[in-house]
């Protein structure tokens, strides 16, 4: 008998479909409605750093070069107060097989899917991760089905996403292209059920453990070349996996004083599920439209418990503008000879402003680059923006209004960051944890979990819970 594929019937079966497609029972890690054993899940369900290094060596992933950006560092020092302007290093993740750090995440998921005997893998995202999954699946002779949100209702698609579709097809993947809407998840459930494929979720413990090597490697590289730890590691933040995996790796390398700073492109005011807004943004990832909701409620994803939990690790979270990222993308090509990005250069834009805070002998690491290609290029993206009614001009980035204009800085000194209020985000997360789990009474174990999950202490959590009128 054919299965009922109506929306309600499929969503009804979601838990069963997801559990089968991940081969992982999350129940054993559950402590209460709010709390779960995060470290236990990462240890028992994920892979150890040593195992991941072995998997990635075989997959041709990782061990990317760490490059010093001498000219950009000079420009930072010219625009800092005397004696300030930390050295900026960049981890050239574009050197991975499919051109981004996402190969780290995909390599472990695909290794796991192969080990468990799945016939293929499914990945549902419009970012570099789909290309990484397609590339790694090709190396392991696994079938691959990718699902992308590509078009608005006019059938107009972001050039960057169209390029991602092309890349997946180049690796032999089936590419399912959809118009805007969160029901992409519903389609992914139907396809998982139909194919029996593994859900190569961005948010599984396998994927996140794959990113730990990035943090670990960069600390090893900085230590061996400069004999010290970096003051800051700046991470482009979207769904939270990049921050979480990198920070875990940095900690595993013992760099306890290194600050983890998330950076996103400011897209405030644009709704990510809006048909009209969809093509008014030039960045399809690394922006606040993912960065904020995924930090304040990580368990909104396609897995029961998200392994990417950015508030557990973030020391600071900053934003930059689209125009600033385009500017530094051009700068990186023109004075460093590295044509990369643009979206992956979000953390570089932030690092330029952050390096000015630090003395010259400190180090700031930008932990990724990504490949550039047709569609995934500043000219293509600025042209697309103009055709969707966005004003593109040189000027003061402070005039930036997402969805209305893109202001390319007139001068290097104008590159700056806006600090996000992490305590406000933590509060929002705690509220979500209580409300979305429909919890009436919060226990001591919950408080301990929430403190760990927000990188705070019990007193902080209790004060917010009291404020929210929750029974303790």
């Amino acid at each position, binding site marked *: 008998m054919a299965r009922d594929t109506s*929306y309600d019937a499929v969503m009804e079966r979601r838990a069963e479909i997801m559990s089968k497609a991940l081969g992982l029972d999350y129940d054993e890690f559950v402590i209460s409605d709010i709390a779960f054993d995060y470290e236990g899940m990462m240890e028992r369900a994920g892979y150890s750093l040593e195992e991941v290094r072995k998997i990635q060596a075989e997959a041709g992933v990782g061990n990317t070069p760490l490059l010093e950006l001498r*000219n950009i560092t*000079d*420009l930072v020092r*010219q625009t800092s107060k005397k004696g300030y302007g930390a050295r900026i290093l960049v981890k050239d993740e574009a050197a991975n097989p499919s051109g981004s750090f996402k190969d780290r995440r995909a390599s472990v998921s695909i290794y796991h899917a192969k080990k468990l005997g799945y016939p*293929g893998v499914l990945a549902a995202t419009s970012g570099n991760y789909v290309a990484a999954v397609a590339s790694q699946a090709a190396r392991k002779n696994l*079938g691959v*089905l990718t699902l992308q949100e*590509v*078009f608005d*209702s*006019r*059938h*107009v*698609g972001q*050039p960057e996403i*169209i*390029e991602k579709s092309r890349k997946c*097809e180049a690796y*032999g*993947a*089936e*590419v*399912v*292209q*959809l*118009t*805007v809407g*969160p*029901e992409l998840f*519903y*389609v992914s459930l139907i396809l998982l059920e*139909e*194919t029996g494929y593994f859900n190569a979720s961005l948010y599984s413990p396998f994927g996140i453990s794959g990113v730990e090597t990035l943090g670990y490697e960069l600390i090893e590289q900085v230590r061996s070349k400069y004999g010290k730890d970096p003051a800051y590691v700046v991470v482009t933040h979207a769904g939270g996996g990049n921050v979480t995996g990198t920070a875990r790796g940095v900690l595993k390398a013992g760099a306890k004083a290194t600050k983890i700073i998330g950076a996103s492109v400011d897209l405030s005011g644009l709704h990510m*599920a*809006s*048909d*009209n807004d969809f093509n008014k943004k030039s960045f399809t990832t690394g922006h606040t439209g993912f960065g904020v909701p995924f930090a304040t409620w990580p368990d909104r994803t396609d897995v029961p418990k998200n392994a990417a939990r950015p508030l557990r690790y973030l020391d600071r979270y900053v934003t930059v503008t689209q125009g600033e990222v385009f*500017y530094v993308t*051009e*700068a990186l*090509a*023109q*004075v460093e000879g590295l044509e990369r990005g643009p979206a992956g250069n979000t953390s570089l834009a932030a690092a330029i402003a952050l390096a000015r805070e630090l003395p010259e002998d400190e180090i700031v690491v930008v932990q990724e680059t990504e490949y550039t290609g*047709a*569609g995934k*290029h*500043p*000219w*293509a993206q*600025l*042209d*697309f923006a103009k*055709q*969707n009614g966005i004003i*593109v*001009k040189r000027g003061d980035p402070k005039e930036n209004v997402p969805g209305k204009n893109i202001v*390319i800085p007139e*001068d*290097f000194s104008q590159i700056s960051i806006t600090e996000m209020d992490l305590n406000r985000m933590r509060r929002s997360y705690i509220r979500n944890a209580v409300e979305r789990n429909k919890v009436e009474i919060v226990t001591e174990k919950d408080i301990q979990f929430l403190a760990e999950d927000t990188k705070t202490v019990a007193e902080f959590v209790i004060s917010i819970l009291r404020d929210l009128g929750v029974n303790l």
Partner: protein
Amino acid sequence: MCTQIYSEVISVTKECKKGDWVEIHYIVLEARERTGDIPEDTQKVPLECWIKGWAVEEGSLGEKITIETPAHRHVEGTLTRINPEYTHTFGPYARELSTIGEELRKALKEGN
């Protein structure tokens, strides 16, 4: 041009043979079937889907056809393109970025 309405790209051939690489389209959810939890503008339009694969039968543009996808699924939809090509590019010259390199080289030279 980056803003390309893909359905308006004219295929040279109007008919496909079995084994041709083609693109099909179908509606996943009509507007009225969409979830309530989405913005109003999105609620008003259907959720649409395009997939490419090899035609398992002959067909004409605008007709229903079944394809076999690279993941070996058989999917039925309306034939929208035959031998679909990618037309995204590096884009036209961006005046707003064109002088940044010179400006920075000048600053580096003066700084030294």
